[in-house]
């Protein structure tokens, strides 16, 4: 399976923490973080998901020269846009140690189980599981994640 190199950088951690509204200095202030139990800047608990930035084939990032399914001149840039599309159903993180600036992680993605379920709010649901193992420069496992994505038959009813 695909292996992604994920360099963990302080500015990326700062931007990610800002995006989730987290002002904890341990995510952006090296001097303050040095005085804490963790001894330096660490990444917030869901930061591992930002590995998407380093996946060359990530399907939810527009790429130069390729049609994008979001709007431009027309509501979708592709002829057959996904009618309901995929949603995120579950996300699980197992932490072995915090991620830190300077880590260069090797992330291996593995497909998991696939299953189906019938839903009143969105028709047939197809679930797909994906496991990712994050290892550091020494080969030590630092983070394991399990994501479950769901493709719905129709948009989720808001009633």
């Amino acid at each position, binding site marked *: 399976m695909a292996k992604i190199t994920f360099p963990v950088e302080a500015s990326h951690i700062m931007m990610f923490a800002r995006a989730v509204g987290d002002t904890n200095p341990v995510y952006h202030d090296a001097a303050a973080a040095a005085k804490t139990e963790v001894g330096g800047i660490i990444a*917030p608990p869901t930061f591992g998901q930002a590995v998407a930035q380093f996946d060359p084939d990530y399907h939810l990032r527009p790429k130069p020269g390729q049609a994008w399914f979001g709007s431009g001149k027309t509501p979708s840039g592709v002829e057959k846009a996904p009618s309901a599309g995929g949603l995120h159903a579950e996300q699980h993180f197992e932490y072995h140690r915090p991620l830190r600036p300077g880590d260069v992680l090797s992330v291996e993605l593995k497909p998991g189980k696939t299953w189906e379920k019938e839903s009143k709010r969105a028709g047939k649901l197809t679930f797909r599981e994906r496991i990712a193992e994050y290892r550091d420069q020494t080969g030590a496992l630092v983070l394991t994640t399990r994501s479950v994505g769901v493709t719905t038959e129709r948009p989720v009813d808001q009633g």
Partner: protein
Amino acid sequence: MKMALHASRLKVGDTHRERVVENLTRTQIVQYAGASGDYNPIHTDATYTTEVAGYPSVFAHGMLTMGLTGKMLTNYVGDGRLTNFGVRFTNQVWPGDSLDSTATVTAIHDGLAEIEVVTTNQDGKEVVRGTATARIDP
């Protein structure tokens, strides 16, 4: 900078609750797209989302809601103390929503606290439900 929990001062049923976002803005959703790298237009592109995807408006990434929920958790258990954090996304989160996250201690054993995690919107509707485990001090 948050201190760890202490087993001697912690009991099953203890809770910690925070308002993790007030009046979620489309701009914060854009900010999350940029930081995380998830540019799915259903989160930021109203034209696509209403005319093609069939939703009433753009909505937040599940992972933004999980990140907001994680902020409450690390404020409670301390920096670098989580060993597990997992959630199911049970309802969508929309611009204008205000979210409250609650941690409830369900078990204490072997230097760990087991925690139930729930995030609800301003109408009391649950948007995220899950569990976390954190290392605690004696």
